[in-house]
């Protein structure tokens, strides 16, 4: 008979049958991913690693070039370090703001008022439209001389910045676009789902003890949804670091490389200049960075994430 119990201390003679069955079951449930991983993922990933040590233009087979690509990235590519810094700047701004925004939206929508489903759908709209359409629309809104945003600022006496025309304001412009498209999007839905998981009794207990709504938010809601916050944080960082489409459509990486993010650099090297080997090197350096960041987040998560089921 199978059980769910985690490992009990092993008996002196190797694993107990129970423990053995437990381990086997664990791997069995994992098998679809293991198979898919080996069949569909490992090969191309290893290939891309191998490619990073070659010169490859898709047309002809790759030719070995050793560490040239990596050396080039660190010493010769004038865009390598700036693109990295700009990407980190973008992520540093958009991730915290995005998390706060989505959480606020989820709290707002977690009400039982009439028509909430309708409101929720409207909130989610920007995610349902192809991002290209949203980006073009946003570019109009941020047009420096006639766009709605600067028009509004003008009315309250501020001369708005030149947004996508200027090097300083291009990234903030893209951050605002990211917030607009993502605040009501999947992140908010995930927060909504997470909010459902907070037991009612905790709220009851808190209000019996005289807690205000703010205190309930801080002491009950937030701790209980830390797994959700953690999830959105990890994925938010990974996604923000890979920012591409909005820059590609709105500014094409400009003006004067102002929005030339790391993923844009990879794309141009891979699919416009056909330096696939170099692009692979860039990609792997990037992957290492993200892995390190994610591992750091996982490590520190134990101190602030609370899993109710453990």
């Amino acid at each position, binding site marked *: 008979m199978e059980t769910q119990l985690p490992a009990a201390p092993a008996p002196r003679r190797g694993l107990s049958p129970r423990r053995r069955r437990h381990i086997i079951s664990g791997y069995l449930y994992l098998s679809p991913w293991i198979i898919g991983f080996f069949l569909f*993922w490992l090969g191309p990933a290893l290939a891309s690693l191998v490619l990073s040590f070659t010169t490859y233009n898709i*047309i002809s087979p790759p030719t070995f070039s050793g560490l040239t690509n990596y050396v080039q990235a660190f010493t010769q590519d*004038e865009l390598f370090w700036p693109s990295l810094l700009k990407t980190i700047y973008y992520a540093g701004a958009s991730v915290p703001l995005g998390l706060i925004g989505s959480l606020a939206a989820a709290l707002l929508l977690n009400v039982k008022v009439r028509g909430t489903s309708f409101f929720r759908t409207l909130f989610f709209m920007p995610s349902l439209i192809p991002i290209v359409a949203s980006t073009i629309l946003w570019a109009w809104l941020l*047009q420096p001389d006639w766009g709605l945003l600067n028009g509004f600022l003008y009315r309250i006496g501020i001369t708005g910045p030149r947004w996508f025309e200027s090097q300083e304001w291009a990234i903030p412009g893209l951050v605002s676009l990211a917030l607009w498209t993502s605040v009501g999007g999947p992140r908010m839905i995930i927060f909504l789902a997470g909010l459902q998981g907070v037991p009612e009794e905790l709220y009851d207990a808190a209000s019996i003890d005289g807690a205000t709504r703010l205190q309930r938010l801080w002491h009950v809601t937030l701790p209980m949804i830390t797994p959700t916050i953690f999830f959105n944080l990890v994925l938010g960082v990974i996604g923000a670091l*890979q920012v591409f*489409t909005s820059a590609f*459509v709105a500014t094409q990486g400009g003006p004067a490389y102002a929005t030339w993010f790391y993923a844009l650099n990879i794309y141009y090297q891979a699919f416009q*200049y*056909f330096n696939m080997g170099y692009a692979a090197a860039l990609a792997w350096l990037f992957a290492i960075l993200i892995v390190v960041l994610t591992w750091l987040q996982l490590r520190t998560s134990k101190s602030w994430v609370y899993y109710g089921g453990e």
Partner: protein
Amino acid sequence: MAIPATPASLGRRRFLGMVASALVGSAALVACSSQSAAPAAGNTPAPSSAAPTAAAGAPTAAATTSSAAQPAATAASQSNEPITLIWDTFRGIGTPWPQHMIDTYVKQFPNRKITLRPIPVPGGQQEAYPKMYAMYAAHTLGDNIAFDPSHWEFYRAVPQGILFPVDDFVAQDKLDLTQWFKAFIDMQHFKGKMWGLPSWGWTGVDGLHFNEIALQEVGLPVPDQNSPDWTMDKVREYADKLNKKTGNQVDRYGIDLSLGAAGVTIIARAWTSDIISEDGKKALLTDPSVLPAMQWIYDICQTDKVDALPGSIPSGKDNALFSSGKIGVLQGGSLSVTELDTAIKDPKVTKLKSVLFPKRPDGKRPNQLRGGTWNVNSQSKHPYEAWQFIKVLSSYDGILTFNTEGDNGALTRPDVLKDKFFTQNPNFMVFLENLNNAILAIVPFNAHGTEYETTFTQSFANVYLGKSDFKTALQTAQNAVQAVLDKPAT
């Protein structure tokens, strides 16, 4: 003004696991990549050595000498075997034109078929090339293909042996090459051979589209491009006067210059210079011959501040702003004429009048020939039959309907320009003069065309954004572009 670029996205996936795909270990990959290797390895200077090796036994295969191609071609063209060609294209799709071309060909050769495989790119042809190269590497690319010279991939495809040379077919068919403008035929040549026939083409952003209503408003006449006082200084004067502001608010930009590589080339050519040397090896941004052009741009953008800078215009929307009366004069070319005419909603706000740039001392006006090609895949098992289809595509009817039905700008044949479609629009006919006096584009020697263009466009922005000193910014741009031109050919 917008930097010429591709405005749309690839629909990039964020969650790799969902997409996944591929298979079976890097061993399989190494094995398959050596099998799928193109016959031409690296940079073989002689394109003919890249002729299809795998094409099993067909008489048209492995033609490394011109004499081998000739008898094979004749045999095939007289055969009645049913042959199916595959046509991979990203131009003209979504219109009736491709089918019209196929029908014309099939009427000529009833036993043959053509399978159309459209490549729907998200708004820029560049996306099609990775797919085409991957298909070539996998030996699944169609017989009829196109690698456009003006988008640089032509100059990669030829040394890599992707294209089948057509010189022998031309000789054999005694094809009269004067049907097309000579410049467009020249464009089909590279490394001593000819690789296809002209498809789309124009002379670049060599014109100035004036809004006549705006001119009337400021009391200026439409410029007479043949008058001796039509100079670049005059153009600047027009730009200054057409600019309209209310306090700090811009009501109308005076001018919208095209400040990417192609647009600045035109301006440089107004001073009989260019941004790259004739041999394609040196960037000329700080060269004394081109400095007046750079200064002119800087003055309009920063000194007078009357230009609609890139970034203030959502990508690709310059024409929309012009049609709405927000731009006094727009740097554009023949291909903008149709788009502008369709986009103008209110003739009381905008009326189009196209004028060419001033004449240079040598009598020509600045222009840059831009165009495409129709090619034959070197891996094709039926190159001659594919060539016969190219002749249909590039024929009078093919080119004319490419314009009228296929939504493409193909001004590559003089006879086509006599058609009502063009002659009924005087703004179109203005550009005929430049087609007859076309100046070819200069190709970077190392064939890093795309990188050269992108690097120029990005680094030149420092000049017209005015954040740093003019000379410093120009030098930075010069260094960046030169660095690209110095790279070895791949």
